[in-house]
């Protein structure tokens, strides 16, 4: 009698297994791609630790942390985007529309320009711009400001008991304030400080180290696990606040906690890697179109497809950059803008504001 339901479950399992395979396969292939033109045999040797010292270092200290960063941050940003969209009943909700990214940029700029903070990078020429400061200072500031910003937005919205449209508008308003503040900072910055600050905002997976990967992984894995536990509550939110409340769901608590968690995931990823926009819009959008909204599947599927997208985008950025990788954030934004427009002009344009 429950044949149809178990059938559904099998389909879900198959889709997720496929995505896991895709992530693993892509991640493996990405080991072989890079500006140092190592041959496949050399890469494999380095993987086993039997390459030359330089090759071992390139593989283990540059390529692998970078690939891990793509997998982790892609999953985190995408799942966070999905949850924000459900929470706000708005297909265009994402870290950038809610001002989280802008606040991170301001925090990083403040650290780099005003306090000459350093940041970790392997991908550009400003590596030397770590004027004796703690290399994590910039990330920490970015994290603090993005968290502060989302708390402000959530606080403002409690006053209006969380009407979804209000949250997005508050986020946009607050985001512009951060951007204006950033502009003023940059106006007074030195040339070096300014370029360092601007380069920080380019999302760049090359900054990842094992330590940052570990921190991101801890936050992202915990986050996705909690989102999975909340699947049904998030599903209930899809029926609207009144209906969800009448079903006994503590709507305000579910929304507040999941928004906060999504923001922390975003803040951690952005603070270590810079702005990687639109991952949180593209992947959930495609997943919801193909697999439906059910969070039991859309949370893991968004996360995995986020990893796939970021791995692909990073590969693209490394092949286009003529030796040094283009910022991966630019690639995802190029890919993302058309999706944004489809949401606005698509059949379900009602998603703009419900």
């Amino acid at each position, binding site marked *: 009698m429950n044949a*149809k339901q178990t059938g559904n479950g099998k389909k879900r399992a198959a889709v997720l297994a496929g995505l896991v395979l895709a992530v693993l396969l892509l991640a493996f292939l990405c080991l072989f791609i890079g500006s140092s033109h190592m041959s496949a045999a050399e890469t494999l040797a380095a993987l086993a630790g039997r390459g030359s010292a330089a090759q071992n270092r390139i593989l283990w200290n540059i390529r692998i942390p970078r690939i891990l960063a793509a997998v982790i941050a892609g999953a985190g940003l995408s799942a966070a985007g999905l949850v924000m969209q459900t929470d706000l009943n708005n297909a265009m909700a994402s870290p950038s529309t809610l001002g989280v990214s802008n606040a991170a940029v301001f925090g990083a700029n403040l650290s780099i320009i005003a306090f000459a903070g350093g940041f970790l990078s392997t991908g550009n020429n400003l590596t030397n711009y770590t004027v004796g400061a703690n290399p994590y200072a910039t990330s920490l500031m970015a994290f603090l400001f993005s968290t502060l910003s989302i708390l402000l937005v959530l606080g403002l919205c409690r006053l209006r008991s969380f009407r979804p449209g209000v949250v997005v508008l508050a986020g946009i308003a607050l985001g512009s304030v951060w951007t204006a503040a950033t502009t003023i900072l940059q106006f007074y910055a030195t040339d070096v400080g300014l370029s360092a600050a601007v380069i920080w905002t380019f999302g760049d997976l090359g900054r990842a180290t094992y330590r940052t990967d570990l921190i991101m992984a801890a936050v992202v894995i915990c986050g996705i696990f909690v989102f999975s536990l909340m699947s049904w509550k998030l599903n209930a939110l899809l*029926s*609207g606040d*009144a*209906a969800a*409340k009448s079903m*006994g769901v503590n709507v305000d608590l579910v929304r507040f906690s999941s928004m906060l968690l999504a923001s922390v995931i975003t803040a951690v990823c952005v603070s270590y890697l810079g702005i990687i926009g639109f991952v949180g819009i593209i992947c959930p959008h495609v997943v919801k179109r193909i697999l439906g909204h*059910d969070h039991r599947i859309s949370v893991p599927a968004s996360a995995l497809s986020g990893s796939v997208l970021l791995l692909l985008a990073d590969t693209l950025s490394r092949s286009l950059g003529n030796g040094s990788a283009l910022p991966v954030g630019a690639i995802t934004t190029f890919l993302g803008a058309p999706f944004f427009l489809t949401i606005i002009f698509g059949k379900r344009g009602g998603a703009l504001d419900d």
Partner: protein
Amino acid sequence: MIEIRGLAFRYGRNRPLVLNGVGMTLRDGEISVLLGPNGAGKTTLFQTILGIRKPERGEILFDGEDLLKMKRRERAGRVAYVPQNIQFGGLSVFDTVLTGRISRFGIRAGKEDRNAVWDILKEMRLEELASRNVEELSGGERQKTAVARALAQEPRFLVFDEPTGNLDIANEQLILSEARRLAREKGIGILTSLHDFNQAMEMGDRFFFLKDGAVRASGGPETVTADIIREIYGAEVRVVEIEERKIIINGGKNL
């Protein structure tokens, strides 16, 4: 039985009272129809009973227990809601109905929950649609799915806001007969609002006229008269009896 006494509600400290001393008694297995002009506070009253909005004053007792102080889950097992504007989230019909049991299972639905949903789908003749996406349903099927979701809460009372709002006549009859069946066969108390007086007369056991946030008149079918309709709505109607049924005709003598 739900007893409501002195219920007052407003949407913000300096705003006018939307409900101002509402009192009514709803009985198990009866269909209570709330009548009143647009903006009389019908939906607000429903949502206050359901715990969606917190009243400023007054009490709501469910078999003597304070419904307002009850835990969310306990309340969800007593009263359930079929909203006026039904919104679904693109789940299958089965999963949508299963969502109604969330206060019972919390994190993961068990076998018991699935079986309960199958029973309800069968009872509502929605079985065939179980794996369909709710977004593909017709208006009547959506309405039935929403009722099924409310029933999945296993409530004793069902609040049914404008059940016939956007339905054609066949679906209208379907939903109304479903509501009647739930009241008669399962003893579920139903509180509903209907704009059409004739539908109301056909359905209702008890009638409540709401205006300016208070119940102005209540009682059985005899309560519905041209006078009270004039007083509440400011509209002229004529009441005639055909085959022992009261029929309300628009326009009164002026038409």
